[in-house]
């Protein structure tokens, strides 16, 4: 008697069980297993470094932040709580936040003269307009992105891949703040739905 494919468990939908194995690896890391840590690094370092590079651009700083993120993963593996999200989300959230914090700290140091900052933002926009189309490796994400309205896509791209605050995004796109807030949320809702994120 053929039993057919077994139903998928939570977390297995997109990664064919890879998600589950990340959780297992992290559990071993929490027990101090350095080989498991090395394997976990092999699995998630490319996305960590990828997102950090997008936000920071600078290769040397990106390497530093990537290393910091994994040191933090090692240090706090014991505090990971599976009920609050997947390991992939835990690690990439940490990576994105650190990259953004690094950018903001550097910015705070250079933004003292408001007029210079404004001029630079105007210059930055030309640069953004050209580069807002981020090269995406994954067909599925590319397709999901193309389902967004222009404003949603620009808001998500500038905030996530460029590390701008929503005020900066509003300024660059010349749109009211409240609109950027809702477009960011709407964009993420649409991405979540078309990517079939576990709910």
């Amino acid at each position, binding site marked *: 008697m053929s039993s057919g494919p077994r139903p998928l468990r939570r977390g297995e939908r997109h990664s064919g069980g890879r998600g589950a194995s990340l959780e297992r690896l992290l559990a071993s890391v*929490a027990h*101090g297993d*350095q080989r498991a*840590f*090395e394997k976990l*690094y092999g699995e998630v*370092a*490319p*996305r*960590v*470094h*990828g*997102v950090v*590079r*997008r936000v920071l651009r600078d290769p040397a700083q990106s*390497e530093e932040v*990537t*290393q910091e993120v994994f*040191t933090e993963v*090692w*240090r*706090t593996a*014991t*505090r990971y709580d599976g009920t*609050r*999200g*997947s390991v*992939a*989300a835990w690690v*990439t*959230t940490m990576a*994105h*936040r650190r990259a953004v914090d690094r950018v*903001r700290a550097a910015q705070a140091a250079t933004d003292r003269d408001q007029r210079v900052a404004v001029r630079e933002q105007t210059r930055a926009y030309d640069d953004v307009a050209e580069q807002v189309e*981020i090269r*995406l*490796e*994954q067909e599925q*994400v590319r397709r999901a992105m193309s389902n967004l309205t222009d404003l949603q896509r620009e808001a998500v791209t500038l*905030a996530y891949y460029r*590390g701008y605050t*929503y005020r900066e*995004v509003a300024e660059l796109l010349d749109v*009211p703040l*409240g*609109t950027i*807030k*809702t477009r*960011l*949320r*709407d964009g*993420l*809702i*649409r*991405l*979540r*739905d078309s990517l079939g*994120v*576990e*709910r």
Partner: protein
Amino acid sequence: MHSLTGVYAVDAMTDIERRVFEDHLPACGVCTVEVREFHETAARLAEAVAEPPPGQVKARLLASIDQVRQVPPLIPPEPVQSERWRWARPVLAAAAGLLLVAVAGLGVFTARLQDRVEEMQAVRDQVATVLAAPDVRTVNERLPSGGSATVVASADRGEALFVVSGLPPAPDGRTYQLWLIGADGARSTGLFDVGADGEVIRALSGDIRGSKALGVTVEPAGGSPRPTTDLLVQLSLRK
């Protein structure tokens, strides 16, 4: 505050805003679920730009973690009290509590004011977008309590406005919640409260395409991840 989930999930707020939002987060079930889903979504965005770090990063890292102590897991704290200062604890706790309430109150007040202004701008903006759409459509239903609910929607633009008049305020400790109802059930698209004038206008966040109808329920304050009471009214989004 609920509209900030997207901004929060992609770290597009300042440190202060982040702290105010993180204070609000544990009390709001809807936001917590949404933030978690957005973080999973963002993880996919990260995967799409994956780029292996140069080999030396791994080498440096593995050499360094050997000298990094892992933090112990969190254990719920056991209450330990010294006899001598025991009387002071409730006093200190009360004082600290008052201070916290005052500080948080000020932060929340400011954040709310700003929220209001931004919400109104967003609504104004969306009213213009929806009304200007060539396929704009209006559906109106009477409410059981008197008054009426209306949805003005553009399927092309995937946006809609929700307007009620003559609705009594939600009972104490309760709130109205809006749902987009599709083939896969109901999905929250926000909470609303009614002022003394019984009128509300809301720009719907979330995509209305793929949804059959818009519904309203009464939920416990903070909202629910799924509807827990019967629909007060249901407005069709399909032609």
